[in-house]
C-alpha cells in the first residue's frame, strides 16, 4: 500500500496574529513555521502503520503546495520518517487552488491522509476537495485508522458519539485529534537521513482563483472582566441571569 500525507505549512500555534498596514495580508515577519498540527499527527499514524502492519505499507510520501521556503517543513516530515516528498512550486491561493495542484501529483495512492483543517485560514476544505477531484471516498473527523486485508477500518466522530466504518481503497482519511497520541519528534539520525531523501519539485497547473481575502480585522477588544470574590459564586450566577441575561 502506498500512503500519502498532505502537509500544511502554518504559523506556530502560539503566534500572535498581525496583519500588514492596510490589513490585506497576514504579516509573516518573525513567524516560526510548523507542520500543521493535524498533519503531523496524521504522519505519525502513517509511520505507526508502516511499522506495525508487517510490510503492508510500502512507502509514505508527503506533499505540499508552497514556495521554496516551505521545504524546511517538508524536510521535517522526511526527518520524522516519510520516504519521499513532493512540493508543488506555487504560492498558496485558495483551497481549490491547492486541491487542484495536489490532484495532479496525488494519483496512485491507496490511502491519503489530510488534517481536518489548517490552523491558519481554517478552511477545512482541501481534503474533501481533493477526494472529490480524484473521485475517491472520503471519511472525515477520523480518530483511528487500521489497515486489514487491504481494507481501511476507521473510527470517526459523529454527533454524540463515534462510529466504526470501513471503506475500500483508494480512500481519503480526514483526521482529527486522537489519530495518534503524540506527534513524533525527528531524531538526529532522521534529520541526517532526511537530507538525502528525494524531494521532487513540480510546476503548478493553471487553476482559477475562486475566493480571495479582501481584508482582515482583529476581534474587538473585550471590556474589563467583572470580578467577584471566592465566596461570591452565587452572586456571579445571579449577575449572569439579571445582567448578562444568559441564564
Amino acid at each position, binding site marked *: 500500500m502506498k500512503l500519502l500525507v498532505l502537509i500544511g505549512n502554518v*504559523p506556530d*500555534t502560539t503566534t500572535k496574529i498581525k496583519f500588514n498596514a492596510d490589513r490585506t495580508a497576514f504579516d509573516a515577519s518573525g513567524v516560526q513555521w510548523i507542520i500543521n498540527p493535524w498533519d503531523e499527527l496524521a504522519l505519525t499514524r502513517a509511520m505507526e502503520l508502516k511499522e506495525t502492519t508487517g510490510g503492508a505499507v510500502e512507502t509514505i510520501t508527503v506533499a505540499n503546495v508552497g514556495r521554496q521556503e516551505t521545504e524546511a517543513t517538508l524536510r521535517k516530515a522526511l526527518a520524522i520518517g516519510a520516504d519521499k516528498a513532493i512540493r508543488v512550486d506555487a504560492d498558496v491561493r485558495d483551497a*481549490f487552488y491547492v486541491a487542484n495542484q495536489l490532484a495532479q501529483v496525488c494519483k496512485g495512492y491507496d490511502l491519503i491522509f489530510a488534517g481536518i483543517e489548517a490552523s491558519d485560514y481554517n478552511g477545512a476544505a482541501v481534503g474533501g476537495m481533493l477526494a472529490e477531484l480524484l473521485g475517491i471516498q472520503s471519511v472525515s473527523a477520523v480518530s483511528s485508522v487500521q489497515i486489514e486485508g487491504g481494507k481501511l477500518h476507521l473510527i470517526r466522530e459523529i454527533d454524540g458519539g463515534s462510529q466504526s466504518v470501513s471503506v475500500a481503497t483508494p480512500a481519503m482519511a480526514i483526521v482529527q485529534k486522537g489519530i495518534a497520541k503524540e506527534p513524533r519528534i525527528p531524531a538526529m539520525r532522521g534529520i541526517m537521513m532526511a537530507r538525502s531523501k528525494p524531494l521532487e519539485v513540480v510546476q503548478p497547473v493553471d487553476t482559477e482563483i475562486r475566493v480571495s481575502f479582501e481584508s482582515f480585522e482583529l476581534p474587538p477588544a473585550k471590556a474589563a472582566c467583572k470580578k467577584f470574590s471566592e*465566596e461570591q*459564586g452565587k452572586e456571579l450566577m445571579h449577575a449572569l441571569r439579571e445582567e448578562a441575561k444568559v441564564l
Partner: protein
Amino acid sequence: MSVLIYTENQDGKFKKVSFELASYGAALAKQMGTEATAVSLGQVEEAELQKLGTYGISKVLNVADQRFALLDNQAMAKAIAAAAAKTASKVVVLAHNNLGKAVASRLSVKLQAGLVTAAQGLPSSLSPFKVSKVVFTGKSIGHVLIHTDMKVLTLSYNSFGVAESPVSLVVESFDPGMTDSDFALTVEQTQKVTGKILLSEAEIVVAGGRGMKGPENWGAIEELAEILGAGTACSRPVSDEGWRPHSEHVGQTGKMIAPNLYFAFGISGAIQHLGGVSSSKVIVAVNKDPEAPIFEAADYGIVGDAMKVLPQMIEAAKELKA
C-alpha cells in the same frame, strides 16, 4: 435562482443547527430577492419538515432515502448537488460542523463553486459577493470575496441565530438518482452517548482545565452542566492526559465553539485555548492565578479555587432553575 440550505437530521428529527440555517437561508434569500429552499436527506418526520416553514423556508426537497443515515460524504454531496441543479440555486449553505465541512468541500468541486467555510453572518455585499469568516481559529476575522457564479458556504454555529418568519411550506419528494454504488461506506458499529448535550450545538458550555487537578473532580462540572442543560468541555492538557475524551477538547487543535455562555474552571487560557472559545457571547473564568490570560478574555471572573466556587454555583443554579 434560489438559496439552498442543507438541513441535517438525527433520528428522524432536525438538529438544532438546521433551524439556524433555515433562518439564515431565508434572510439571505430576502437579501438576494429570491426564495429559500431546503434539502433534507434521510427519513425525517412530517411534523419536523413542517417546522422549516416557521423559519422562512418555502419549499423542502425531501429525499426520504434511509441509505443517507450512513452519512456517506460522497453520496451526500451528489444528492445536494442534484438538489442545487433542480432549484437552480446559486448559493448553497451547510452547517460548519464535522459533517457540513466534509460534505461542503466535495460539493463545491461538483458545483464549480467558490467555498467559504466558517462564514459568519450575512454577506456584507452581494456584488461582489463578500462574507466574513473566522481565521486563525478565532484570533481574527477575514473578509472574503467569492468570484464564482456558484457559491457554497458553511455557517459558523450561533453566528446568525434563530429567527422566525413564518411562510407556507411545500414538501416535495425529490429523487436525486442515487444508486447503491454511491454508498460505498460500510458502518460497522455506532457508539452513542445518549442524553448528552452536543458540544457543537450547546448554548451553555461548562469546561474544566488542569486546575481541576484530576478526573475524579469532574463530578461538579458535570453536575453544573446537567442543571443548566449545558455541554461539557475541557482544555488540551486534560484530553492529552486522558482525563476526558478528545471529543471534549476545545481550542485550536480541538473544537471551536461559540455558545451564549462559557464557563472555564481551572483553565489558564493559553492563546490556543482562547482562539477556540473567544466567539462565546459571555465567558466566565474561575482560576487561582490572578494573572491567568483567561481573565483577559472573560466577562466575569473569580480569582479563586474552582473546587470552592463550583458548589456555590451549583447551589445557585439549582435555585435559579427551581
